[in-house]
């Protein structure tokens, strides 16, 4: 789902990088104080885990599939800041090693998928947990996927307004919101359902195994 290089105008990705640098500094602040033999491997493994989750396919009805985002799972299991840093690290490695996503778009992708997705997952979980924990986990996962898709659809759809030639032809991403919103949100309704089912199964397993989970 992440946006590749070349589709966002500098008016979009340069401020997004600025915001993302602020967000990374905020997320790393506590971590820097406690960089030791426990936190360093934990961050590395979380990053690898976030990468590994992206390789797992979310099954969809009709035989098709999408990729697991895993942001909600990482956030609920390990906390917002480590999950955001780990997910940003994965986006960077994917862009450099596999040309998936991009360097210019790293800020937007990290903010939309890693940070906003994680925040929404956490809020939904905290709000709904007193009512029913399983529903809270499933909706948190679904909500994080939809939030990322919505933000990226808004950013992509704004490109024709932000940067176009004098004759009106686009310079970067060519489609407006009337196309980007349904094109991203409709498939992610189903990807979100797959991710919710998967996250719930893993959450239950984590409880059964007695993993010591921080209270998100």
């Amino acid at each position, binding site marked *: 789902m992440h946006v590749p290089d070349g589709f966002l105008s500098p008016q979009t990705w340069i401020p997004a990088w600025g915001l993302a640098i602020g967000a990374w500094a905020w997320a790393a602040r506590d971590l820097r104080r406690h960089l030791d033999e426990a936190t360093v491997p934990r961050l*590395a493994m979380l990053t690898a885990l976030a990468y590994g989750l992206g390789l797992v396919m979310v099954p969809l009805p009709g035989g098709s599939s999408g990729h697991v985002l895993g942001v909600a799972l990482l956030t609920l299991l390990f906390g917002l800041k480590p999950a955001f840093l780990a997910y940003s690290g994965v986006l960077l*490695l994917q862009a450099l090693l596999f040309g998936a996503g991009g360097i210019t778009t790293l800020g937007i992708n990290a903010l939309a998928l890693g940070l906003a997705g994680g925040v929404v997952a956490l809020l939904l979980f905290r709000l709904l947990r007193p009512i029913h924990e399983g529903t809270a986990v499933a909706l948190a996962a679904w909500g994080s996927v939809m939030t990322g898709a919505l933000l990226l659809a808004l950013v992509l759809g704004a490109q024709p307004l932000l940067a176009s030639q004098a004759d009106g032809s686009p310079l970067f991403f060519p489609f407006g919101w009337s196309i980007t919103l349904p094109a991203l949100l409709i498939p992610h309704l189903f990807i979100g359902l797959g991710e919710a089912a998967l996250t719930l*199964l893993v959450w239950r397993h984590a409880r059964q195994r007695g993993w010591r989970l921080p209270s998100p």
Partner: protein
Amino acid sequence: MKRRSPRLLLAAYALALVALGFVHHPGLLAGLLGLALLLTGRERWALLKKSLAAILIFNLSVSLGYLLLQAWQGRSSGTYLLIMNLRVLLMVFLGFWLVRRVNLLQALAPWPTATLILALTLGQIETCRRLLADFRLAFMSRHPEPAGLRARVRHGASQVITVLDKSLAASTEASQALRSRGAFDA
């Protein structure tokens, strides 16, 4: 080609990415791509092939969508498609070129903790990839006919659980190894 400082190459790459956002002439973009290919040396075609493969699906979808929209609106101009595809291809090509030229671990050498995190991450990523590839092959061998939705959800969940288990175990192992070697002793 003479080896340049990794940080110099990194800065040149970042500058090139920013500059490319302001180039909107297909001829100039094609010229820059040609120049990049010329300067890359013998590995140019391998890198170009890799770059094309990386952008194929997304760029093809956007290009076809744009062509359909243009046809529907009764307009026709290929300039945008040329600009967009050349820019994306050049950016991805430069990224792969950078990774081929710069050893990321070497570039991070002045920051030992960052080097350590990257080394551990890359090692663990490789383990993850192999593990999931094995899982996929095993699932396919157990299901000669296409598997149902329920089986695929359970398969996905079991992959995630295994990767999680592995990661937690590897984190503990690495932590103990670092402690025993006094990696963070003052």
